[in-house]
């Protein structure tokens, strides 16, 4: 990938001060992200709940 493309991707993530060495690391990150995405099961369905679900605390001392 060209340096200009890596610089743009970094900027989109808010990372505007990465050196050339850091951009090389970002390139490796892109490959790692693709590899991890490929390993996710393809049958995950929207009906399966997430492991993090917003949950309100139990009310304390409140009587309607």
């Amino acid at each position, binding site marked *: 990938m060209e340096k200009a493309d890596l610089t743009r991707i970094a900027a989109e993530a808010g*990372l505007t001060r990465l050196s050339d060495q850091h951009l090389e*690391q970002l390139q490796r990150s892109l490959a790692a*992200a693709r590899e*991890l995405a490929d*390993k996710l099961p393809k049958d995950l369905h929207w009906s399966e709940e997430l492991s*993090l679900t917003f949950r309100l605390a139990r009310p304390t001392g409140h009587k309607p």
Partner: protein
Amino acid sequence: MSDLAFLSLSEASARLRAGKLSPVTLTEALLDRIQRLNPRFHAFIRVTPDLAMAAARQAERDIKGGTWRGALHGIPFGLKDIIDWSGLPTTAHSKVLAENIATADAAVSQRLKAAGGVFMGKLATHEFAIGGPSFDLPWPPAVNPWGGRHFPGGSSSGSGVALALGLLPAALGTDTGGSVRNPASMCGIVGMKPTYGLVSRRGVFPLANSLDHVGPMTRTVRDNALLLQLIAGYDGDDPGSAEVPIPDYGAGLEAGIKGLSIGLVRHFYTEDFSAHPEQVAALDQAAQVLGELGAEVREMRLPPLEQYATTTRIIIRCEAFAIHRQWLATRPEAYGDLARQRILDGAVVSAADYIDALRLRARLTRQTLAAFADFDVVLTASNMDPACLIDDAEACARLYPRQARQPFNVTGQPALAMPAGFTADGLPLSLQLIGHPFQEAMVYRVAAAYERATTWTERHPLGL
């Protein structure tokens, strides 16, 4: 001296309570040992002798005056340097936080202070508990006393080394993808990752909030149960804290395991990974020992390790990047290479992949807990290999993912690593015992029976 260096927490506590040992004598002896050995093994990045001696003298006055605060009273301990101790820097072993002075104690620090423990200092970690071993940080990495030139595991590396080296009888670590159990395995000590939510994370610098745990590290199973007893409990200021009853974790240690049902997840270390032959033999031998002690040991299967690793890696990287984004935007050069690489990985994972990783986590948790239903405790590998040389970066990178700890960060179940033998070269081998959520007492019961039947936790590095 070696008598005091390797005195267990429970033995030291009994002597202190009986007036046969002074907290000042014990603290001075360990401070001397730290002064002699820390320059070579780098377990501590900050020793606090003044604080330690003041706490030891106070404990001595209290005990002589008839005030006994319990098992940790007068006992030296240390904290991984992502855990706040008011007035001291919490550096996370990073230049980024070198000047970060904690303004309050972490919840676990408060508890250990209230228990009369003698705080000895801050222990080395991998940078932000994610990047290591690294040689480009303000402090050198901790070195394993077993072998003398080996990787001690991480990220709670200083905690593992301090215990193996006889610098402390008790320490705390943290575990997001295995970071209590990895150094426990490589350093030949006992490390427990408790159930998610059992121990408060307030005042502990996060790596990945949804996977972070604080855990006790000791040289014996009994000591581990004692230390967990002191730090477990609900904290309304930790959103992940669980409001559950806290049992007596030491109550069942002598009960034996006759009639218990123990699952053996052998495919983790023979199919998903081909573990080192000596590690495989140690695990199979451990299963045999548990059987001879009266447990029914049966093989079982869980989802492939790669699925747990995939969800763990995506979640850690995304949550860590969210925490570090501002610093990476303004001071990327302040990070060591390894931590920067691993945290940058989270910058380019899509939100949809993160959400799918959370779906996968929920699915794996359901499947794992269902498979556990027929068993009291499950036995499997922690590490697949003994320690490599710490300056062999290629070997460290190759061996780091060869582990079976992440499944139980994913599910949040309690998981304990302990010694299971030694290689022909004298390096520790290990096993892992996993329980049902909040059933730490059962894990300790099985671990204690195994410990009594073997001698592994009685061994210490020679000549130090």
